[in-house]
């Protein structure tokens, strides 16, 4: 018995006997990304246990969904991952379209890709900037927001909103792009591309940044899969999975003909790594640095996809088609669809009894599963590592609490 305790890796011995202290990190705390509450059990600076408490932003979106028609619920998806509301709209729209076996027009498909990938860039910019903030550097946050604002300007022009768009909808999109939008979008991409190197200088390759993130919060691939982690968190652990390539047919069909390489480390190399900084020494696959770096690579990847979609979209003739009626009756049955959102795989499950309102709506959020792994990652780390780990998971509480 004594031996068992001796060998338990979770037992940490300290040089000075200190009393365990329970510390509430949040719900009001600068680095918990909203209203997350982490209860830390600390021994001095060392955290022996972390327990996340969620629900401070619970707005009963699923219950509300049972009382609204399918299209009426789209604004509620906006408020899940409010940093990438376009991708949320897309996920729900596709899930309903899957149930209806509906296929959008070719032009709408390319416009959806264009909008979703821009949304991904915008979301990753927040994730990147806020991560710098978590590690104590303020400026990259504003540099990231400066660029994000330009994307939001584009979105505003397209749909009139800057945060909760409800732009992508069931059966297409609410409106076509205004004239001159594509030129402005291309101008933004041209201007944005060199700036990414700045981010690499300030964060990715910064010696202190690497020190703070390398080898911290290592998430092994098995654990990532077992916890249902997804998105950059999963790919940061070296799992080669991206639903844009590996997802269900209705979703991958959207990306038919698009060329992109999943941002994941294979044989010690990231795709296109000749253009981007080498992986610094000391990093371990699955640590905070890799999760961060995957996001950085996905920004570039998304820019590439946006450029491709601009070409395809402008080559399409005709209209984007009409969205569905507000109270369209659905066939009875159920459908579950996961899409690759910036934060991970967002799944929508929809049960219909044949009426215009869903019987049951379920949102499976990526951040929910990604956050669930925090206690494992933070066990035995230092207090300063907790924001580093939670920040690297890039969670959004609106999506977790729904």
């Amino acid at each position, binding site marked *: 018995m004594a031996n068992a305790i001796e060998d338990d890796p979770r037992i940490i011995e300290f040089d000075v006997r200190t009393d365990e202290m329970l510390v509430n990190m949040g719900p009001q705390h*600068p680095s918990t990304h909203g209203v997350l509450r982490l209860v830390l059990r600390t021994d001095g600076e060392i955290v022996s246990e972390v327990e996340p408490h969620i629900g401070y932003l619970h707005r009963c979106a699923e219950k509300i969904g049972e009382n609204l028609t399918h299209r009426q619920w789209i604004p509620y998806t906006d408020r899940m991952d409010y940093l990438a509301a376009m991708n949320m709209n897309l996920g729900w729209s596709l899930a309903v379209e899957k149930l209806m076996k509906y296929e959008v027009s070719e032009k709408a498909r390319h416009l959806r890709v264009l909008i979703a990938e821009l949304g991904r860039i915008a979301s990753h910019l927040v994730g990147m900037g806020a991560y710098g903030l978590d590690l*104590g550097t303020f400026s990259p946050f504003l540099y990231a927001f400066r660029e994000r604002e330009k994307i939001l300007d584009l979105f505003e022009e397209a749909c009139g909103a800057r945060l909760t768009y409800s732009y992508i909808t069931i059966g297409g999109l609410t409106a076509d792009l205004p004239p001159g939008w594509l030129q402005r979008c291309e101008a933004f991409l041209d201007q944005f591309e060199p700036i990414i190197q700045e981010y690499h200088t300030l964060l990715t390759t*910064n010696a202190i940044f690497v020190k*703070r993130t390398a080898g911290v919060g290592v998430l092994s691939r098995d654990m990532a899969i077992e916890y249902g982690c997804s998105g950059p968190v999963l790919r940061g652990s070296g799992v080669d999975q991206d639903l844009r390539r590996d997802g269900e047919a209705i979703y991958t069909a959207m990306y038919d003909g698009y060329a992109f390489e999943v941002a994941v480390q294979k044989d010690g190399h990231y795709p296109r790594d000749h253009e981007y900084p080498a992986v610094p020494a000391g990093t371990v696959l699955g640590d905070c640095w890799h999760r961060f770096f995957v996001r950085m690579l996905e920004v570039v990847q998304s820019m590439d996809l946006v450029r491709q979609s601009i070409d395809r979209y402008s080559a399409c003739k005709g209209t984007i088609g009409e969205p569905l009626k507000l109270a369209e009756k659905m066939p009875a049955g159920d459908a579950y669809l996961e899409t690759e959102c910036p934060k991970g795989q967002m799944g929508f499950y929809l049960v219909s009894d044949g009426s215009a309102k869903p019987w049951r709506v379920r949102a499976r959020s990526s951040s929910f599963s990604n956050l669930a792994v925090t206690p494992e990652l933070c066990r035995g780390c230092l207090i300063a590592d907790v924001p580093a780990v939670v920040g690297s998971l890039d969670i959004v509480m609106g999506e977790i609490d729904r």
Partner: protein
Amino acid sequence: MVDFLTSTIGLSGWLAWTLAATVSAVLILNVIAGGALVFIWAERKVSARIQDRLGPTRTGGRFGWLQSLADGIKLLAKEDLMPEGADGMLFRLAPYVSFCASFCAFIALPFAFDVVGQRLNVAVFFVVAVLGLEVFGVILAGYASASKWSLFGAMREAAQVVSYEVPLGMCVVVPVMLAGSMDMVTIAEKQAGWFWNWYVFHDPFTFVIFWVYVTCAVASVNRAPFDLAEAESELVAGFHTEYSGLRWSYFFMAEYGSMFLVSAMAAVLFLGGWNGPIPVATLLGFSEGTGDTAPYLIRLLGLANLVGKASLGVIIMMWIRWTLPRLRIDQVMTTCLKYCTPIAAVMFAGAMLWQIGLPGGLIPGAGRPGGEIREGWLEGPGGRAAAPPAADESRDVARVAP
């Protein structure tokens, strides 16, 4: 100043002395308080420029000159809160301890030749010692707040500052060794002339140790990337989490005061003190003896020089703060114990050996004032070949006592 008051105006001794002391005290107090106002404004402007923002623009015209003053008024009007479980006496006392320490250190800091609150024979030692006292206020604040975050901040501060005093002391000793005196006025005087007379350019060892000093100074005044005691992304606001209003602002005045102080120390010890890079006064034929106004002009020039150098140091600290992420506590300690201390020790030994081998420096004809005092002392044991630098007239209270 006492001389001036007694001889020129004809005040009696005690009145002159009291007046001089009051003027010095008020001046130093204003340097700290006014300096803090200016530096807080500068910090905002500098950070804004770094981050592509404008910073304050409304209060006080285009540049927001009066922003800090407006903030000060706001802080004065704020309610002074104290947590329920706090130790009232210690909680109230802590900001003053910090502020007094910062204030006291200014007493021995020479702003120009003879412009010094109290010329101390052990000025360097005194400043370092008193600066170390500032940590006590921080510890008290953290402990008395009855907040766990504050306590963490206090513990970090204690560990960090006590550790960094070791390499800081070693760095400070090098210029003391070169000048053969701990009197800051003497040290600065020895670096008169062209800028290659500055101790930072004395030999390669002093050049390296200057940068070690910069690192340790930033760490000892708790500025990023070593601002662990108030790391906002981890500890909310660290030791001053529970403070508000005027008491909180005392901590800030102390922080900016200390920043200015260590910068001014760097200027005096390594960068020639009030001597500009080019000996303008000498080239123009001014000296202490020429005319009535020349000494004042020279002192004014020296004052501008020193304040300029110190402000430059403060601005560089701001630049660092807004660029780099924060280190973790273990990395901060590693930086101190594994890098700063050994490097400082080696450089100290190196500088000492250099003094023996090449006492005149690399350029023999540079006209650097040598260490004549030291050689004088060594003429014979028990003998007294050269007098120590004459005591300044105002250096002892008893002089003016009847």
